[in-house]
């Protein structure tokens, strides 16, 4: 029965993803307490090029926290049309309508109803240009998600990743469901380590266009880019500070790989670590006070923490094997990283207080984890069917998704920040 339900869900998702998704999504597992919800097709949406209610339903299903209940032909669009006795199997019911505004924009009105208490939980209108129907739907899904789970939704956020096709590398930005793919950069040398500015307006990254690793920062709006660091050897691992006023980068200009701070225009460079070995992959704490980083200073490769303004580095990971690629959780209470043991990479989290490591995945070539901005999901790179793909896992390890690219391999994913509404 459960299997059937997921199969149905998969087919449904596959069907809704047909239009022009760059990624095909596969879901496994479910949240501990799935909320049964029905999303009724919105009045007037049949005139649109895409069904907003279907995109909303797909978003909620992908989170693993909702169980989508069939509407069985019932089509209330206003609260007065709802017969609650018809909806005994659901906790919540979303109804709505769309219309074209005189300005040419599309407006969707949505109401979220509590099917148990027979009350209205949410009533809101969302509008956008008619070529941004998916953005409208993602916004509605975010509102529903927030109302029912208490956490901010991330359906309107974007992800960045590198798509490798033979010797061609594209730095891609896409919606978190894989639609709306846009190439930021297309080159014939590798691209690494995309990092979002906190306002989502810029990406910093590393490319080998100049025959060695050079760090750039590029505006997603104007596509203009500046060289952040082009010293001899390797320039890499850019990471924006939470206030956007500086970046941590890794240089080999004075020593082996060490961490430096630099302003977004490339000025005011100063060195932070003096480890002697390899120090790399800096990640700022949300308050901007600390950096987590990867270092081999203790013999094996482990994760350390250092105050940004200087001080002693404190080792964080001790579990067997090597540990790489730390990223702070948005609340700063834990971090996610790639745990390498017995020939496999696992995505794991560790709480700062308890120091307990929790492995979230089954292991494989799982690398480069980053949290969704609400901290509920982790995006990472893995392999399936001999290709590099994207995957997500919920931060409790229960819900897993694989996202297959249309062509080539995906590497180096990074989840973007919340967009300003």
């Amino acid at each position, binding site marked *: 029965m459960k299997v059937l339900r997921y199969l149905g869900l998969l087919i449904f998702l596959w069907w809704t993803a047909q239009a022009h998704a760059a990624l095909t999504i596969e879901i496994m597992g479910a949240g501990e307490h799935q909320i049964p919800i029905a999303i009724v097709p919105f009045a007037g949406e049949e005139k649109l090029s895409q069904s907003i209610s279907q995109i909303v339903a797909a978003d909620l299903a992908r989170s693993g926290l909702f169980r989508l209940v069939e509407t069985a032909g019932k089509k209330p669009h206003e609260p007065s049309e709802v017969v609650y006795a018809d909806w005994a199997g659901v906790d919540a019911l979303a109804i709505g309508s769309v219309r074209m505004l005189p300005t040419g924009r599309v407006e969707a009105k949505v109401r979220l109803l509590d099917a148990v208490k027979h009350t209205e939980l949410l009533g809101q209108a969302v509008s956008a240009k008619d070529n941004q129907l998916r953005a409208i739907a993602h916004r509605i899904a975010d509102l529903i998600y927030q109302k029912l789970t208490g956490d901010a939704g991330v359906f309107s956020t974007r992800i960045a990743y590198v798509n490798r096709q033979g010797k061609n590398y594209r730095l891609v930005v896409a919606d978190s469901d894989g639609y709306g793919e846009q190439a930021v950069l297309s080159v014939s040398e*590798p691209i*690494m*380590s995309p990092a979002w500015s906190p306002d989502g307006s810029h990406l910093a990254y*590393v490319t*080998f266009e100049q*025959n*060695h*690793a050079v760090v750039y920062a590029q505006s997603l709006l104007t596509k203009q880019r500046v060289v952040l660091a082009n010293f*001899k*050897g*390797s320039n*890499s*691992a850019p990471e924006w500070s939470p206030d956007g006023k500086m970046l941590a980068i*890794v240089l*080999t200009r004075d020593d*082996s*790989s060490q961490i430096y701070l630099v302003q977004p225009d490339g000025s005011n460079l100063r060195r932070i670590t003096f480890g002697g070995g*390899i120090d*790399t*992959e800096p990640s700022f704490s949300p308050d901007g006070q600390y950096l987590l980083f*990867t270092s*081999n200073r203790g013999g094996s*490769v482990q994760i350390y923490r250092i105050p940004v303004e200087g001080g002693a580095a404190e080792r964080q990971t001790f579990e067997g094997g*090597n540990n*790489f*690629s730390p990223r702070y959780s948005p609340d700063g209470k834990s971090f996610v990283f*790639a745990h*390498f043991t017995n*020939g496999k990479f696992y995505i794991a989290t560790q709480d700062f207080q308890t120091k307990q490591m929790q492995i979230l995945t089954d292991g494989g*070539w799982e*690398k*480069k984890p980053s949290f969704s901005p609400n901290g509920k999901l982790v995006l990472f790179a893995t392999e399936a069917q001999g290709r590099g793909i994207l995957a997500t896992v919920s931060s409790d390890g229960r819900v897993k998704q694989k996202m297959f690219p249309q062509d080539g391999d995906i*590497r*180096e994913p990074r989840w973007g920040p919340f967009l300003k509404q």
Partner: protein
Amino acid sequence: MRNLVIVVLLSSLLAACATPKPVAKGEESTSAPVSEGKRTAPTAPTVSSPDAVASVDDDPLNDRNSMLAKRSLYYPLDGYVVQADDKAAVQAHARYLAEHPNRKVRLEGHADERGSNEYNLALGQRRADGVKNMLMLGGAKSDQIETASYGEEKPKATAHDESAWSQNRRTDIIYK
């Protein structure tokens, strides 16, 4: 020039051998002019190469039996120190660079995939920089040497096993 013709003749001979027996006569006759055309086509661009080789014939870099012929250095997992077996070769390159101050070399470090991309980039850089230090100790000048790392981004072998990994933990010495 003569070699080329022989190669072309050989290959057309091979092609003839490879041709399946039950071939219609008409097809056989049309294939002949095609190989004739091939024979003349490649001569133009390759004619200059024997001269170029001759002019640098006395360069020990071109001696296949010299220690300078060793252009790739390999490492154990996570290692970045030039291995004992490779030291003589690196010292020979250092001597060559010291004796040929106008020659420049590029050192490209690589790593296997058992680490994060960024860690591997750092590791490959450390491998290349380790070779650079040894070359400079042997008399090469800093401005003769450029280093770069590709980490795990440009693997020579792509399998997920030691046979591939051992080929990818490497510094390549590339004369410019």
